[in-house]
């Protein structure tokens, strides 16, 4: 059976199974387990209604539990064992990591990524949002800046490989250098330290559109009176933007910032495609992939370090969500 056909059959089984489960379980609950008849129909109905939410939630909870909750515990547990999982070595993997210069490079680079990419994307997105909202062809411009969202990280990396290529007849950067009179082409991907920033540019290019779309909606939600009052008070356009408008959307800016931060900690594709982690560009997710399939203990330890970095954001998100629900 061809995989595509297998996929179609799976869709049928999956969708049919889900619909069947929800329908049958619901029917079973109402007709057989707690029928609205017999000695006390009222009590049966309220019992059925108490069970029903869990019926609806069960498949999602099972999937979430198995694919996201269990791995957190499972990964931590696995990270306490050695390469083949045979013997318990406590925090051995973590002390090994701390002693590995490659890990420290990855951690340092990741720190740079976390500092630079969200800041640059949010800032550029904010500028793009404010500017495109003020012109008639703004929506087309938005569309173009937003487009990289649809492109895979691998595709985006290839696109930028063409820009960075080490030949003046292919790479735009070297073509511009040649136009300015520099003789030898440079390989920007191999310049120590700064190459990381060239890789970051790819993710910034992708994420600016996301920031722009959300911040543009937030900017449009600002009450006109505040801006009118600022104009009457004689504020110039820059003062109005940075002192009146931006402070009113800080909440949204923080959301955009944290969303991109989380993403930065997950993306291994760009480094993997562009340099394979060479030339000192390693980051934690790609460092982890270099141990995947080779040393599960080490790989899970790196994954857990990433989890620890994400943890504060997670807690903050949960607190935020609980505040909103009240």
């Amino acid at each position, binding site marked *: 059976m061809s995989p595509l056909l297998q996929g179609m059959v799976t869709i049928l089984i999956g969708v049919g199974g889900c619909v069947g489960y929800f329908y049958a379980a619901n029917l079973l609950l109402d007709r057989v387990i707690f029928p609205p008849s017999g000695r006390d129909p009222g009590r049966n109905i309220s019992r059925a209604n108490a069970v029903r939410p869990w019926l609806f939630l069960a498949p999602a909870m099972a*999937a979430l539990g198995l694919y996201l909750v269990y791995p957190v515990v499972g990964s931590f547990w696995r990270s306490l064992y050695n390469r083949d999982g045979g013997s318990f070595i406590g925090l051995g993997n973590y002390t090994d990591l701390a002693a590995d210069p490659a890990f420290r490079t990855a951690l340092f680079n990741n720190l740079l990524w976390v500092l630079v990419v969200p800041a640059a994307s949010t800032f550029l997105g904010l500028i793009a949002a404010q500017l495109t909202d*003020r012109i008639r062809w*703004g929506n087309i411009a938005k569309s173009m800046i937003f487009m990289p969202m*649809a*492109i895979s990280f691998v595709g985006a990396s290839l696109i930028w490989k063409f820009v960075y290529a080490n030949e003046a007849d292919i790479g735009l950067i070297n073509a511009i250098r040649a136009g300015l009179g520099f003789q030898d082409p440079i390989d920007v991907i191999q310049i120590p330290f700064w190459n990381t920033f060239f890789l970051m540019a790819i993710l910034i290019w992708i994420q600016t559109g996301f920031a722009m779309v959300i911040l543009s909606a937030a900017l449009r939600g600002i009450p006109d009176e505040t801006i009118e009052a600022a104009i009457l008070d004689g504020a110039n356009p820059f003062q109005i933007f940075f002192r009146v408008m931006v402070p009113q959307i800080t909440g949204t800016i923080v959301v955009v910032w944290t969303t991109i931060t989380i993403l930065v900690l997950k993306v291994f594709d760009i480094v993997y495609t562009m340099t394979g982690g060479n030339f000192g560009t390693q980051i934690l997710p790609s460092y982890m992939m270099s141990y995947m399939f080779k040393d599960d203990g080490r790989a899970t330890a790196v994954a857990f370090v990433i989890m620890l970095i994400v943890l504060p954001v997670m807690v903050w998100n949960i607190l935020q969500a*609980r505040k909103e629900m009240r």
Partner: protein
Amino acid sequence: MDGHAGAKSRLTWAVHLTVAALVVLWLVPTVGLLVSSFRDRDQISASGWWEAPLPVEQTYRLRTDPGAAVERHGRFVLSGNVFDSGDSAGTGTVTGFGVTGRAPAEFAPGATADLRGGGRLTVAADGSFTAQADAPFGRRGPTIYFEAETPPKVTLDNYRMVLGADGMDRAFVNTLTVTIPATVIPILIAAFAAYALAWMEFPGRGLLIAAVVGLLVVPLQLALVPLLRLHEAVGIGQSFMGIWFAHTGFGLPLAVYLLRNYMAGLPRDIIESAKVDGATDFQVFTRIVLPLSFPALASFAIFQFLWTWNDLLVAKVFLPAASETKVMTVKIADDLLGSHGGDWGILAAAAFISMAVPLAVFFALQRYLVRGLLAGSVK
């Protein structure tokens, strides 16, 4: 902000120019890739893609066939046209020629050069050449080096090559196979859960919503090793089945979160009056909430589709590394970049094949994507 009448027009111009610059900056890399994918591979390395509509100046080498020489008045004459065969086949204009590889354009077209083995060579601008010598040319004819301008070539060869010999067609089907079930199945599971979290009263509801918000940010990296071992233990191993499950699990938090937010915003009156009229929760969900939630369902479907289509990490871990099961991202990152590292035309074509569907989806359904983003982030 439109207060200063005098400053306004200048500022408006600045805005237009800045936005135009941003758009150009954002588009240029992609346009470069698209243009390159349609160019001839020799032309790609001879001139930049921004010069694609211009003729390309390339250097060629032609080894003449001494057997074609004719004896005329005691001299041996070898003539022909450099554009008749070999790499340089086709029309073009010779801009210079030479007799050594070190100086391939030493002489202007029409000039006469001394051959190293004795004799003379002339190459005209239209490519016709004549070599004359007093003695036969021997086993090897003289080698002509020349520089020629060839008109720009638009070709589909790169696409043909990638889809045929490099197996990108198979990878495309594999990506499709991964993507469709991984998009459809989570929607259904999430919709029921989202309804329960939005419109049903039960103890622990707030806690569950908080848990979903927390799970939104769990790094995928954590899930890789334990789940792969689990799949191996239950016999799924690395397979399409495994990657469908994995994508379903990883997509659920966003699905539940987006759909719950949307459903919770539906008007209370409709749902309560339906319940007063005797509709059960199941009926309210399937007949009222589900149809009304279509925009949110569409947003999530687009997200999940783009995410699974573009994914590299999950595919690398949960699918076998054999070439029959490689998806496009893995194919490009692991195979093509290795074997065709310097073959830019092939890489560009492969990238565009992998980007075509997401870009089409993006431009056709952008409205829903934006709406979903806003529902997920701004509250």
